[in-house]
């Protein structure tokens, strides 16, 4: 069965053009770009090209790009660098809905004695700029706010955020892993200091990413060793993956119009169709500005894992904000931060599309999902009428 892949915020297929661009670096072009012979040096030229491709996609200079192994490495490097470079500043500002790459790191830093302000979001997943402004202090070393949420697709207003943060003199980092290639991000207009992207979210392979560091920003490397990446990230370059990333960013930039027209229209059709076909359903973050490819939809009275496993019978790949899929016992931290009622949070499903998504994919979901929800609701002891009151165990103190 061919998968109907609607889980592109988790990872994406490698674009055929990207795969063919990277393959020679596994076979004939295996040289080390640092070598003092033309066989290795030739590979260096391809790295320079890839750096230029990524820089062009972000509207920055090639020297401002540091290649990394993944998004998590970029996030860790940026935040730790900001703290190490400003030892007198011990305060961090971030949000409650960040990806674990930032969330868990900030919790770790909190345990190590840094002070962290956790910004709340409203029921649509939006940030309060007033709260942000109030949180900033003289000793704020860095503000880390994602560009787009991976679970709901909700966008944070980076330009407004940057204006506020810069006027207070703090460094600004944004995890843009879900945003790059989907919405325009121009470093010329957006005064962020660090921006992180990841290859496998934009049709490059896993194991490569990039960190943008604005020229002139104080920087302390995370990996210390050789002179690679201008001394900002030691370790022999993953040449094949870096070439792939350059190619992927170029393709994504070219496809951005399609992402915001055709892909958005597919997402909107899926959203409207499901809302119309399934009673007691709602969109998580539906009132906010969102990525064009992401739909987080919640079905009352049913549980997400059961939905995913039944979708899987049709080859449909999606993901869930429910507790049961992750091995944790509570719904996702993002849905909880938004105050999504538990009755909906457990039944939340995320569909994330890509430029490879077709009309037929959407048709299949619209045909198969409503009966799945009906079937699970039939099994469930909660019906539409009594559901709210049918709590058997004591009230939760969440």
């Amino acid at each position: 069965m061919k998968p109907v892949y609607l889980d592109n915020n988790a990872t994406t297929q490698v674009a055929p053009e990207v795969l063919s661009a990277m393959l020679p670096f596994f076979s004939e072009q295996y040289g080390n770009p640092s070598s003092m012979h033309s066989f290795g040096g030739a590979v260096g030229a391809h790295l320079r090209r890839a750096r230029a491709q990524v820089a062009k996609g972000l509207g920055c200079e090639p020297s401002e790009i540091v290649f990394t192994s993944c998004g998590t490495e970029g996030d860790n490097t940026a935040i730790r660098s900001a703290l190490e470079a400003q030892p007198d500043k011990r305060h961090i500002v971030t949000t409650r809905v960040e990806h674990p790459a930032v969330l868990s790191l900030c919790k770790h830093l909190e345990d190590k004695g840094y002070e962290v302000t956790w910004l709340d979001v409203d029921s649509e997943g939006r940030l309060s700029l007033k709260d942000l402004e109030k949180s900033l202090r003289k000793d704020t070393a860095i503000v880390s706010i994602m560009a787009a949420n991976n679970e709901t697709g909700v966008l944070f207003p980076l330009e407004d955020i940057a204006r506020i943060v810069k006027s207070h003199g703090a460094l600004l980092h944004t995890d843009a892993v879900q945003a790059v290639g989907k919405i325009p991000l121009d470093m010329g207009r957006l005064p962020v200091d660090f921006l992180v992207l990841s290859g496998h979210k934009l049709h490059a392979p896993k194991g490569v990413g990039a960190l943008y560091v604005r020229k002139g920003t104080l920087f302390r490397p995370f990996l210390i060793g050789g002179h690679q990446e201008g001394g900002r990230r030691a370790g022999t370059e993953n040449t094949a993956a870096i070439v792939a990333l350059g190619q992927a960013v170029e393709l994504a930039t070219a496809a951005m119009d399609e992402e915001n027209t055709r892909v958005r229209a597919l997402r909107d059709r899926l959203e409207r169709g499901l809302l119309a076909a399934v009673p007691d359903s709602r969109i998580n973050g539906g009132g906010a500005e969102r990525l064009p490819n992401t739909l987080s939809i919640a079905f009352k009275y049913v549980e997400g894992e059961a939905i995913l496993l039944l979708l899987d019978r049709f080859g449909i790949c999606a993901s869930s904000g429910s507790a049961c899929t992750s091995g944790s016992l509570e719904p996702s931290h993002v849905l909880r931060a938004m105050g999504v009622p538990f009755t909906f949070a457990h039944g939340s499903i995320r569909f994330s599309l890509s430029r490879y998504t077709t009309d037929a994919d959407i048709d299949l979901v619209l045909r198969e999902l409503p009966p799945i929800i009906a079937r699970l609701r039939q099994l469930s002891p909660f019906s539409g009428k009594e559901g709210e009151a049918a709590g058997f165990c004591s009230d939760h103190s969440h």
Partner: protein
Amino acid sequence: MWEYTDKVMDHFLNPRNAGEMDNPSAVGEVGSLACGDALRLFLKINDAGVIEDATFQTFGCASAIASSSALTELLKGKTVDEAKALTNKDIAAFLGGLPKEKMHCSVMGQEALDAALKNWRGEAAPAPAAEGTLVCKCFGVTEETIRRAIRENDLKTVEDVTSFTKAGGGCGDCIPDLERILAEERAAMARPAGEAPKMTNIQRMMLVTKVIEEEIRPALKKDGGNIELVDIEGATVKVALRGACVGCPSSQLTLKGLVEKRLQEAVDPDIRIEEVRS
């Protein structure tokens, strides 16, 4: 992705005995929408005490639905006494095993069965549990459920307790309680059945002091009372009641029902309380 057995997937995709029952002899309900899973079990029990039919309604993940289906299959044809002996391990074994993190689904089956049998005997429904008896407030898990899961499944770590009962899987505030309960149960399990713990006099005195200081005194203080440990002679613990307890008409009840019982549980079943008036 979870590695479910073929049998789990079969009972999830083709649940047996799903649906509400007309005129059931007994109904057992556990869980809630907020908890993330819930099970309503219906039993038809004949005059001879044989379970003629069992059906269920379940809100939850694949393993919760499969565990419910397995439970009903296990129950049909059994006598009430046979059903009483059923544990969550039987449900998991019927399904060819469950991932450890999903074992709480089998425990939910056992709890629904308990609730249904209580309902059949005409006892009051066990839920909602009083706030005070809950160890895990996030998931509404009682101390009794936790102790039983530890004993019947030979649980060794707090993570195991969370996997099997969900307790501690929310805010985590109850994890110190889980550690204490686990240590107590492990200590009790390490002793041969029926044998009293072997303690030196010093150990016994220290444990008595600890239980009084950490558990009994705070409980009495809530009502304005207090207690003083006067002496320990062998298994006899001499105490004096203070504060509001003095002259309280139920003070003897407090001594026997709370102080003596708790010390017998925690230290030694032979302990006797003697009140010293001063």
